[in-house]
C-alpha cells in the first residue's frame, strides 16, 4: 500500500513539474516572436497576458476532458468511451450554432458559452432518459442512445450550417472555428468560472475514485461489494457531464484528449483510479498546453493559428487507430 502511494506521489510530482515546465515554456513562444525581456516588461496587459490566459484555460480544459474521459471509460466499461460519447459534443455544437446564427452572440458576451453549455446538458439528460429501462440505466443502452441522439442532432447542426449564407459568412466561420476548438478567450470571468467548476469536479471525482475501481469490475460484482450501482452511475455521469460541459462552453470541441490521455496514463500507471484520475488530469493539461503551443506557432508565417482541434486530432488520430487495432485482438464474448 505504501509503495503504491509512493508511486502516486512520485507520478504526481513528476507530472506537476512537467506541467510547470511546459506552461512556462509556452509563455515564450507564439504567433509572434517577442524577446523575453520585452515580454516580461510588457506585463499581463500585453502579449504575456494573452498567452498566460491561454495557458491557464488550456490547463483547465485539458484536465477536465482527461478526467471526464477516465470517468466515462470506467463507468461505461468501454475503452473507446470519451467525454463526448453521450452526445455532449453534438448538443453543445447545436447550442453554439443556434446562438451564433440567431445573432445572440452579438448581444451578450456570454451567449456562446451559455448556449453550448445548455445544449450539451440538455442532450445528456435526453440520452440518460432515453437509455433508462425501469429503474436501471444499462450501459449499452446509454452508449446506443448517445450515438443515436448524437447522429440526429449532428444532422440538424449540419442543416443549420448549410443555411448560413454569404451574408452570414462570419457566422459560418464562427461555427467552424467553434467546432474545431480554440483556447482564445477574451473574458477572465469565464476563465475563473470554468476553472472553479473544473477544480470542484476533479477533486470530487478524486475523492470518489475508489468507487470507479469498484465499477470497472462490473455492475453485479460492484453491487455485491455493497456499492449502490445506479446512484454511483448517476453521480459520475453528472460529474463527467459537468467537466465536459464547461470545457466545451469555454473552448468548443477539442477531440481526442479525453480518449488518448487516460489510455496512455493507464498503460503507464495501471488501473487504480486514485492514481489514474489525478495523473490523467495533469497529463491532459500538459497535452493541451503543448498542442496549443503547436497550434499558435504552426502558421505564424501568415499571422494566424491552427484550430487546436486539428492539432489534437492529428496527434490523437494515429493513436486511436493503433488502439482500435489492439482492440481487435481482444475477443468479445
Amino acid at each position, binding site marked *: 500500500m505504501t509503495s503504491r502511494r509512493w508511486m502516486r506521489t512520485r507520478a504526481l510530482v513528476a507530472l506537476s513539474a512537467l506541467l510547470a515546465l511546459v506552461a512556462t515554456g509556452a509563455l515564450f513562444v*507564439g504567433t*509572434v516572436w517577442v524577446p523575453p525581456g520585452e515580454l516580461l516588461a510588457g*506585463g499581463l496587459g500585453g502579449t*504575456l497576458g494573452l*498567452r498566460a490566459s491561454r495557458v491557464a484555460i488550456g490547463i483547465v480544459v485539458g484536465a477536465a476532458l482527461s478526467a471526464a474521459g477516465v470517468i466515462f471509460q470506467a463507468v461505461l466499461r468501454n475503452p473507446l468511451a470519451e467525454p463526448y460519447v453521450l452526445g455532449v459534443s453534438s448538443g453543445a455544437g447545436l447550442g453554439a450554432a443556434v446562438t451564433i446564427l440567431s445573432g445572440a452572440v452579438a448581444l*451578450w458576451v456570454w451567449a456562446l458559452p451559455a448556449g453550448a453549455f445548455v445544449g450539451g446538458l440538455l442532450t445528456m439528460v435526453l440520452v440518460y432518459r432515453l437509455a433508462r429501462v425501469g429503474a436501471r440505466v444499462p450501459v449499452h443502452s446509454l452508449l446506443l442512445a448517445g450515438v443515436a441522439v448524437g447522429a440526429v442532432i449532428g444532422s440538424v447542426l449540419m442543416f443549420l450550417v448549410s443555411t448560413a449564407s454569404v*451574408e452570414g459568412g462570419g457566422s459560418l*466561420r464562427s461555427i467552424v472555428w467553434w467546432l474545431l476548438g480554440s483556447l*482564445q478567450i477574451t473574458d477572465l470571468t469565464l476563465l475563473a468560472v470554468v476553472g472553479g467548476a473544473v477544480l470542484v469536479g476533479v477533486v470530487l471525482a478524486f475523492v470518489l475514485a475508489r468507487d470507479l475501481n469498484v465499477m470497472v469490475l462490473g455492475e453485479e460484482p460492484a453491487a455485491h461489494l455493497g456499492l449502490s450501482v445506479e446512484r454511483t452511475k448517476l453521480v459520475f455521469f453528472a460529474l463527467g457531464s459537468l467537466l465536459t460541459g464547461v470545457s466545451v462552453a469555454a473552448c468548443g470541441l477539442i477531440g481526442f484528449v479525453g480518449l488518448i490521455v487516460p489510455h496512455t496514463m493507464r498503460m503507464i500507471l495501471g488501473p487504480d483510479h486514485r492514481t489514474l484520475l489525478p495523473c490523467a488530469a495533469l497529463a491532459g493539461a500538459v497535452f493541451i498546453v503543448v498542442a496549443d503551443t503547436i497550434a499558435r506557432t504552426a502558421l505564424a508565417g501568415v499571422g494566424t493559428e491552427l484550430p487546436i482541434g486539428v492539432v489534437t486530432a492529428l496527434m490523437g488520430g494515429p493513436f486511436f487507430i493503433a488502439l482500435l487495432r489492439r482492440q481487435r485482438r481482444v475477443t468479445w464474448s
Partner: protein
Amino acid sequence: MKNGIPGPETSGPGIFVSPSLGPEGIRLATTHERRRLWAAAGTVTTLLALAAAMLASNLLGDRPVPSSGSRLRIVSLSPNITEIVFALGAGQDLVGVTTACDYPPEARRLARAGGFGSPDAEAILALKPQLVVGSGPGMDVLPAVELLRRREVPVCILSEASFGDLFLAIRRLGDLTGRVEAAARLTASLSERLAAVERRFRDVPEGKRPRVYVEIWMQPLISVGASSFVTELVRRAGGISITADLPGDYPQVSPEVVVARDPSVIVLTHGGGSATAASVGRRVGWARVTAVREMRVIADLLPDLILRPGPRLVEGVEELSRRLYAEVAP
C-alpha cells in the same frame, strides 16, 4: 483483342472505339468495321465541335443581351450591384434583388429572388430576366448560376477585388443598361471625391499615417488581407492597414499579431451589440495597444460603407479619412 479486350472483331452494341487509332488500324479494317470507324469519327468530331462551341462561348464571355425597346428586366444577385444599378438611374430596370439588398430604400420594394450568395434559380427564372448580374467571390460557380446559364439566361458576374473593379463594374453596367453617360459621370465624380480625400493627407509621410486594424468579425478575429478592397479603402482614406501583408481577402488573424503590430486606430465593422470600443479595451492582453490606450476604437461606422463594394464605398473612404485625421489634428 487478347485478354478479353474488345477489339474490331468483337461486335456489340454501343459506340465503337478502335484500340489502335494509328493508320495501320484503319488499313486493316474490313468494310463493316470501316463504317463503324466512320461512325466513331463522326461522334468524336461532333463532341469536339460541341466542346469547342462551349469553350468559345465561355471565352467570348457573356451571351449578348437581347435588346428591347422598352426597359430591361434585370435581376441583381448582390447588394452592391443593386446599388450601382440604382446609382446609374436604372433602378426601374431591376425586377428582382436579394434579401440583402437594402439600399437604396426603393430596392426593398422589389421582388426577392433568394439571398446574397444563395440565389433562388426558380424565383429568378419566374421573373423572366433578360440579364442577371452579380459580383463576389465564388458567385461564378454557384449551382444556381450554372443552372441559369444552362437555361440561356445571360448571366454577368463582375469582379470586386479593388476600386478599379468597382469602376469597371459601373462602366460595364452602364454599357449593359444603355446608360454609358451616366456611368461616365458617376465614375468621374467618384474619382474626384477620392482625389479630394487624398489631397488632405498627401503631405503626411508614410510613417506618420495612422496604423489601422480593421476587424470585420470576432470569434475568430477576421481582418482584411492583401487582396481585399477594404485594404485599399484604408489606404485611400490615409491609413495603413496593419494586416495588408496577410494572404487572402479576409484572413483569420491571431490576437498576438494584432497586439504585436500595435494599431493606433481600430475599426470595428461587424456592427451590432457586443463588440464595442469598451469591450475591445477589456480583452485580455489588449490593454497596452495604442488604439485602446488612446481610446481610438471606431465602432460606429456603417459597415455597408466599408464592406459593400458599391458607389457608397467612396463615402466610406471620406468618413474613415475624416475620423482618422480629425482626431489627430491638434
